[in-house]
């Protein structure tokens, strides 16, 4: 192209081409930027940042000492700080730096975070002996370790305290695991057993069949369980006594001292004293805790394991339901139905159902599955537990069914596409060799289209894993006491409510009392969810590409 002046260049239309290119650039940046944002925010949360100690003086007020982690730093117009009532002079400087300091110790100060003006911080330092204590309640503690006590007796103080602390913490954590195992395992089993006995009794009562024999038998069974429980309880009390034995004395930034029982401690570390290796180790241990542990403190700390488990369970059940039905419908539409106006209409309708808002499926699930089907099933099969609903309320089964309905169009469309891609010659070859239509279907067509089905299923799973709106109506809860699959009869609890990663994000991000503290965890959860879904999608894409190659080879 000859270089002309601006007008001719403009007339050639290339600015528009560039604008279009810009749109692609923007879309790509938006996607990648968003992923990067989630990744950075989600992954940095687990890194043990340095804890600073500094003197802070708001002009006209006494100096205080602050200990905490700097989480955000931003520049704000002085005008705004002035408006917030801080003694700053908007005439002198236009902008000031502001930092958000995580000071922890919610039990002492009421809030975890504090905004400070960076200019007023003095003498910033990172003493190595600052300890960070992760607790089961009240959030983190930042401060200095003074003493370690055993049953009220001082066993270490000063410099020795840190060395004496670690074994004590490990011991307490060991006991915690034991208690937890006992409570959810054996005692949970007894409770489930007792509930089953109660329901049997109520069932007999309803049938007017509660004879004295049966009563006595139930009573005997109940006694067995109660005795078992008494035994375990004694065990538990011992464990709790041991658990509460040790405590530490710590000093917070304002000089206040506090005793913390080790039973409330999850983890103790000195971030400023950690070397890079120790920090990496700490990072991965936190990461592991995040994916394998249960949430603490109204879901704002700890892990998301129950949510991962719930999501996986729901998606698995959904796949089991959706695959056969989706494939069946697709096979019918493509192989058996007469290709005419009706089939075309049905195909369009099915296609469009994929575009129907998911909340509509939620409403349908709630009305049809839960209230209509569930309510009637309860009347017929679970009258003994009424008025407490069994299947007449949201739960794993209904959630899976609702999502199966939501994703069945995806499977149908993908499978159909796979079926159309199978060359006619193969079908005709099979029929010509004398195979019946069903044999052709089972032995030739279905195996050949199985990658397409896989693709459909993976896409369905990816969609189901990210869907939240319908689940809010059909059985997701913010905190489920037990997993839907556990050691108590009947092992798989289809009627149980469950936790879900997507809903977890919504709930912790928007319904949590302490959003600021929970936010990093939400980013981490989001990253996890995006990771799972991206992996599923890439799997689907690569299977699809592989499939195309295969048929290309066949056609030639």
């Amino acid at each position, binding site marked *: 192209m000859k270089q002309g002046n601006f007008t001719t260049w403009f007339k050639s239309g290339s600015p528009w081409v560039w604008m279009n290119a810009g749109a692609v650039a923007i879309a790509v*940046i938006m996607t990648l930027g968003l992923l990067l944002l989630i990744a950075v925010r989600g992954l940095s949360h687990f890194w043990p940042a340095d804890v600073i100690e500094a003197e802070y003086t708001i002009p006209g007020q006494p100096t205080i000492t602050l200990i905490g982690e700097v989480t955000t730093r931003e520049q704000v117009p002085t005008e705004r700080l002035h408006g917030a009532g801080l003694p700053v002079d908007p005439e002198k400087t236009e902008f000031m730096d502001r930092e958000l300091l995580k000071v922890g110790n919610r039990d002492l100060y009421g809030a975890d975070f504090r905004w400070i003006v960076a200019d007023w911080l003095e003498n910033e330092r990172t003493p190595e002996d600052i300890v960070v204590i992760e607790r089961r309640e009240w959030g983190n503690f930042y401060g200095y370790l003074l003493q370690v006590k055993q049953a009220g007796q001082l066993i270490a103080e000063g410099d020795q305290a840190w060395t004496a602390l670690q074994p004590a913490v490990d011991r307490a954590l060991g006991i915690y695991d034991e208690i937890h195992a006992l409570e959810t395992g054996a005692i949970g089993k007894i409770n489930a057993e007792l509930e089953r006995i109660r329901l049997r009794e109520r069932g007999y009562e309803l049938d007017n069949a509660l004879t004295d024999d049966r009563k006595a038998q139930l009573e005997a069974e109940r006694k067995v369980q109660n005795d078992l429980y008494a035994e375990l309880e004694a065990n538990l009390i011992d464990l709790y006594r041991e658990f509460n034995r040790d405590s530490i004395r710590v000093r917070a930034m304002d000089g206040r001292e506090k005793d913390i029982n080790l039973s409330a401690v999850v983890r103790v570390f000195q971030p400023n004293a950690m070397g890079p290796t120790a920090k990496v180790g700490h990072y991965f241990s936190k990461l592991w805790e995040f994916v394998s542990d249960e949430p603490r403190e109204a879901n704002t700390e700890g892990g998301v394991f129950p949510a991962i488990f719930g999501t996986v369970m729901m998606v698995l059940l959904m796949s089991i339901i959706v695959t056969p039905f989706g494939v069946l419908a697709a096979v019918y*539409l493509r192989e058996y139905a007469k290709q005419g106006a009706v089939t075309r209409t049905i195909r369009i309708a099915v296609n469009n159902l994929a*575009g129907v808002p998911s909340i509509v499926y939620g409403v349908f699930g709630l009305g049809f599955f839960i209230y209509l089907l569930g309510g009637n099933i309860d009347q017929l099969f679970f009258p003994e537990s009424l008025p407490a609903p069994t299947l007449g309320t949201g739960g794993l089964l209904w959630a899976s069914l609702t999502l199966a309905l939501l994703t069945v169009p995806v499977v149908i469309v993908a499978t159909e596409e796979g079926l159309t891609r199978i060359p006619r010659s193969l079908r005709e070859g099979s029929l010509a060799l004398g195979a019946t239509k069903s044999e052709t279907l089972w032995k030739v067509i279905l195996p050949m289209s199985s990658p397409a089905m896989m693709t459909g299923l993976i896409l369905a799973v990816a969609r189901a894993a990210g869907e939240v709106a319908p689940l809010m109506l059909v059985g997701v809860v913010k905190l489920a006491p037990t997993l839907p699959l556990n050691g108590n009869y009947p092992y798989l609890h289809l009627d149980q409510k469950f936790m879900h990663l997507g809903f977890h994000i919504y709930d912790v991000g928007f319904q949590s009392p302490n959003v600021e503290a929970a936010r990093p965890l939400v980013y981490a959860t989001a990253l996890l969810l995006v990771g799972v879904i991206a992996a599923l999608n890439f799997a689907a894409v690569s299977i699809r590409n592989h499939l195309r190659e295969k048929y290309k080879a066949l056609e030639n």
Partner: protein
Amino acid sequence: MTTQSPSKTSSVDFNTPAMQRHRAMRHFKDHFTRWYVAVGGLGVIVAVLLIFLYLLYEVLPLFGGAEIEERERYSASWVQADDPPLMLAMEEQGEVAIRVARSGQVSFFNARDGKAVLQQQLPIPAGAQVTSFSVETPNSRRFVVGLSNGQVLIAQHDYKVTYPDDVRLITPSLNFPYGQEAITLDEQGRALDQVAMSSDSNGLTLAGSIGSDLVATSVSIKRNMMTGAETRSESRLALDPAQGEVTRILIDPLRQWMYVVNGEQHIDVLALRKKGELNGRYKVVEGMGTSITSVNLMLGGISLIVGDSSGELKQWFMVRGNGHPLLTEVRDFDQQQGESIALIQPEERRKVFLAVDTAGQLGIYNSTAHNNLLVEPLGEGTVSAVAIGPRADHLLVEHGNGELSYWDVHNEHPEISWSSLWGKVWYESYPEPDYVWQSTSATSEFEPKLSLAPLTFGTLKAAFYAMLLATPLAIAAAVYTAYFMAPALRRKVKPIIELMEALPTVILGFLAGLWLAPLLEDNLPGIVSLLILTPIVFIAFAYGWSRLPARIRLRVPEGWEAVLLIPVVMLLGWACFAMSVYIEAWFFGGDMRVFLTRDMGINFDQRNSLVVGLAMGFAVIPTIFSIAEDAVFSVPRHLTQGSLALGATPWQTLSRVVILTASPGIFSAVMIGMGRAVGETMIVLMATGNTPIMDWNIFEGMRTLSANIAVEMPESEVGSTHYRVLFLAALVLLSFTFLMNTAAELIRQRLRKKYASL
């Protein structure tokens, strides 16, 4: 198989029993599979289509009218023909009824068969007769009797429910909340022609009339917190006589207004809080010879229902215009025209009233929905009293001949009509008709405001702002990717966009609400300048690039422009945000948000339409992109090559040939994107304040149909009107998206055929 059987040489026999069995089995399997697939496949499709039918099934009862059905008709032995009823009422279960007669006889009886349960005489002082009567409100269960000696007596009917031997037993009783002694209302001792009362825990207002003279007294009761002792203080209101004979007096429950019906066509409104000052004299009935025949207050006591001799019913309430409240006609009902209205009876829990005319016809109406649910005769002859149960499921009628009849009433959803869902409705205490969604409230006298208009508006507003961002971006990106982009790059870009599509909306919503919204609030000038500067900078960069020496220019092959622009966009974004604070300080006094609100008068919510537009735009871009890209990419090559060969520039080819050919595809992409934006739930739920307002302001939020369902559905009572209206909202969403998608699909199919023929 064959007729010629090679019996000797061939050893294969195809007709052995085993082979036959095998063939039969294969045949059976084939048939079985055919049926199995057909039944299963159709079953799945039917199940999916069931959604539509089920939603319809839940919604349809909303639009049904009312039905009544006569159960029993009897004449009770204790009813005397010359002792007409003053009041008829029923308790909660519709089992026990009460009848108060002019003689002062109060009878509690079984509503189904008329068997007397308890009969009692009102403690009327010796020598006095009942001359007037009034019910306070149906749910206070209090009534007042005016006597011929100028005194009044207040009574209350109560019901106690017990379950001896698991059988429900309802024990009625008559109580006197202000004592059995009659209270003197007219100090001159004249017979009270009309009487009215209104009470609450702080006191009681009584009013009466003698001809056109009015008397009223207000008793305030103070309870000592410690001892519980009551002190009563009485103050009389000096009221001017009305201009005509008073035919009815009503006092609202807040004891603010007294309505005096007088002189056949007028209602005088007196302000009780201003010592009975006349607010105005209103002519409520038009036309010569037409007169007011019946007036009653609706539930909540705000609205007056006026029935006249022409059979017309009108709803009036006090509207606070500019300072001075005026009694205003709100709506009228003419379904019973022709016969004079004899009785008006409000329901206890809903804004529904019953009207009986002199021909004995019953009409059931809902005021909010401007809805006539039923007009049906209650049998031969006139009706002298009618009572509706508190649950509005039973009706008790006393006929002119002294017979009683007991009816079942089915009227589940009177609040809903086409006009109440989609039109402007003049709600009680509102200055003018409006679109309002407000489904729940603290008091039971609340008028549910179930207009879908603000929600639909919010849905369209959210979709509009999302499309505003997404349409140009997605189409431009699709055109570039399909037409200009180098294939190698295209293979990398497409999976990224597909990933964008797969991002769960809950994550987008969370980022929009917790990251983008505060970011936008702090950097508003930055965002605005980014939106304005982006195209300018693109063109400037492109021009600059075209002026570069060819040596550098040619290093980047054609179709890779987008990669060059990535750092430009990033740099620009960074610059805009870095500049934001300075722009804010220089032009907007340090805070653009304050500037907008204070100086421009534009409301600013943190979670606003701009945030939703950006976040939902992000969600919609890949949908539009994929379909539009597909449409542009499949434009037959020979068209473009022909155009280029004739000397058109690539852009001319694109804009005059490619886009024109692919335009139906692009259009259907936009429609499908629109469908997605309309139905999206999580983003709007998390990124807006969910306030149902109707305002196009980009800095304010909205409440969409889908978010509304997500918020309100879990708390809605199964089978209630609210529940069904939420189903209706879902049905609206379903139908809308389904229609959009079907239209888009049909357009695409036609396009595909066109391409095939080219």
